């Protein structure tokens, strides 16, 4: 299968391309950029006039809900959603049921994903057995089965000795440890940022210190053990400052932010909108601005969707009892575009945070359109507005704090390994 994508505006941050250029694909690989290779006869030509052609997006946090939570979402529905959102590679956290703590489960997930032949799935294995924070998992076996890193999902390790040992062990083999920094005792039962809104609405708050205390311990233990650490979904201004300082001091560390937190604050909870019940909580305007600034100056490496499909019933509870999370795969690209526009950034810079940077963190061959790279491509119309509503989403999760909003940026084609896996009119 040979595909010629013509007349599109090509953006490939890694190769410094940001201009109108054709893309030539054969046998699942990019074979040429700009001029047609000798003797190239396309089986299919995609006219990308007026569209933007970028490497398929790489999402560092997408819950697919399989195994165990098929009533919330299935691999099939969520992989469809991923490619509909232009995402061609994604990392999924291990908080499934059963937890991804055994090689067999990881192999099965990889196998199921491969059969669907949509996006590439990179599972994160559990750092501890059952995420119990006590016994570390068989990280070598899990890596062989296909895990690209080890995570505790949303369950913090309370015992710092275990955290220390887990990082030591991971460091032995050069595995990356993915941690969402949250001190579990300070965050206990909290459902919202511990600020004015929580005070008004009478919701139990999670102070910013829950994040900064955890970052402080993680950074320290990482330094002592030499573990590679990726901090997931920063939410506070002080957290960004700490990571900035650590990076400046030469510590090898990466981190991401969810697209939700670049756009929303705790005020978006409004009158107890359970769709705005997220983890970590939406924080203040000041935090939001600091996250944005951190992303612009490179303190934060990547933007993720933090895709967490929740079934409707689980949201039909009072705010605190409603399950946390929002659907995100199909909103990632529009939210990145909006973020770039709001901050007057060129697209090149914004797209890096969802292509090249996350691919580097995952350590996988993705996120660029170099010659001979996998032909994972997203082609989108940056000016096409669409309304976020249940029927517009492929994801089984229809829960979003952006429901009802019109967002610009509609994916027209998604290619994975040189095959068109999504196309919209």
């Amino acid at each position, binding site marked *: 299968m040979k595909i010629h994508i013509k007349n599109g505006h090509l953006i490939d941050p890694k190769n410094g391309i940001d201009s109108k250029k054709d893309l030539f694909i054969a046998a699942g690989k990019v074979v040429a950029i700009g001029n047609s290779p000798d003797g190239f006869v396309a089986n299919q030509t995609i006219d990308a006039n007026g569209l933007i052609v970028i490497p398929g997006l790489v999402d560092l946090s997408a819950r697919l809900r399989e195994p165990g939570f098929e009533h919330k979402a299935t691999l099939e529905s969520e992989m469809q959603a991923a490619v509909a959102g232009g995402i061609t590679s994604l990392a999924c956290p291990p908080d499934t049921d059963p937890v991804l703590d055994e090689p067999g489960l990881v192999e099965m997930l990889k196998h199921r994903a491969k059969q669907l032949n949509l996006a590439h799935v990179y599972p994160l294995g559990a750092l501890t057995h059952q995420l119990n924070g006590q016994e570390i998992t068989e990280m070598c076996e899990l890596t062989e089965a296909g895990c690209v890193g080890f995570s505790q999902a949303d369950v913090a390790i309370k015992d710092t000795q275990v955290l220390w040992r887990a990082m030591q062990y991971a460091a032995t083999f050069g595995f990356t440890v993915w941690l969402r920094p949250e001190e579990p005792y300070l965050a206990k039962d909290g459902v919202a940022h511990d600020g004015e809104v929580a005070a008004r609405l*009478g919701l139990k*708050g999670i102070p910013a210190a829950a994040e900064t205390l955890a970052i402080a311990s993680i950074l320290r233990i990482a330094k002592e053990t030499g573990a590679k650490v990726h901090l997931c979904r920063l939410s506070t201004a002080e957290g960004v400052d700490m990571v900035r300082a650590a990076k400046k001091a030469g510590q090898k560390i990466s981190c991401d932010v969810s697209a939700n937190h670049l756009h929303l604050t705790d005020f978006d909870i409004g009158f107890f909108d359970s769709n705005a019940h997220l983890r970590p909580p939406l924080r203040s305007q000041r935090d939001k601005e600091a996250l944005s600034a951190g992303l612009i100056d490179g303190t934060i490496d990547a933007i993720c969707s933090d895709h967490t499909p929740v079934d409707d019933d689980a949201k039909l*509870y009072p*705010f*605190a009892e409603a399950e946390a999370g929002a659907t995100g795969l199909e909103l990632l690209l529009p939210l990145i575009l909006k973020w770039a526009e709001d901050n007057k950034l060129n697209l090149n810079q914004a797209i890096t945070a969802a292509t090249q940077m996350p691919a580097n963190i995952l350590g996988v061959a993705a996120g660029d359109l170099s010659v001979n790279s996998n032909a994972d491509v997203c082609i989108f119309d940056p000016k096409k507005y669409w309304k976020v509503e249940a029927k517009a989403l492929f994801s089984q999760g229809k829960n979003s704090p952006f429901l009802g909003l019109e967002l610009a940026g509609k994916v027209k084609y998604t290619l994975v390994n040189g095959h068109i896996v999504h196309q919209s009119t």
Partner: protein
Amino acid sequence: MQNPQLTNDGKLKHLLSIEGLPKAIIKQILDTAESFVGVAEREVKKVPLLRGKTVCNLFFENSTRTRTTFEIAAKRLSADVITLNVSTSSQSKGETILDTIDNLTAMHADMFVVRHAQSGAAHMIAKHVAPHIHVINAGDGRHAHPTQGLLDAFTIRRYKPEMHNLRVAIVGDILHSRVARSEIHALTSLGVPEVRVIAPKTLLPENVEKLGVHVFHDMREGLKDVDVVMMLRLQNERMAGAMLPSSQEYFKTYGLTPEKLALAKPDAIVMHPGPMNRGVEIDSAVADGKQSVILPQVTYGIAVRMAVMSILAGNS
């Protein structure tokens, strides 16, 4: 964002919170309540304003006083009243709140009076119910207890009519108190220039000053020259633990004694939403003293709840 408790033309549709309620509506409720105070003194303590209507008291959390006063208020308005304590029935069978609501709606309830342990429960129900149904929040988690806030404002207005010239102190567990939040909004909306909160740091929410209050940790300082002292109930489970060391120490530091009350204005009134913990937050000598208006609060509570229900029914 549209205020979910108002109709499109700005009338009261539900009473969920005092926050965001126009001053005119608060005044309308208080003025209407004035007209109901006398009903209880008549030989026939009834008016026919809610005749033929069904009021459903839905208590997902235990309550005696609030439930009883709502029941009496509805009955004095001639409504049919059903009271359900759901905390022990459907919830344990796994029925969701909204299923419970749907079932009662199918039985043609016209008004729901709802209490729930979670903040936002009344908002969620109000969003869900059919357009002709009214929801009154009788306390949701730590968020709001609007009729209590209104009856407290009503009581203050009766004793201290010049509200724009008052200094009010609210003392105790502000962090967990829906009553405190509703009182603060009611008083600031009605133009009380200085509302103080007095509590240890462990019992105050972050950014509480954003609610428009002055924060004091020293009770003696906080009570100086106030016109009204509103005490809050300290829940048993908070009396010892990480929030407070003991009820004895609490009484010593934040309990209202005659000696501390003497720091307030000589004609200051003392209020408490009940039920009281004598010897924990309030000394019996104060609770039963001549400055106490705790029992009138209960009496006015019925008038205020009648006012809310009749206004809602009138806006159908």
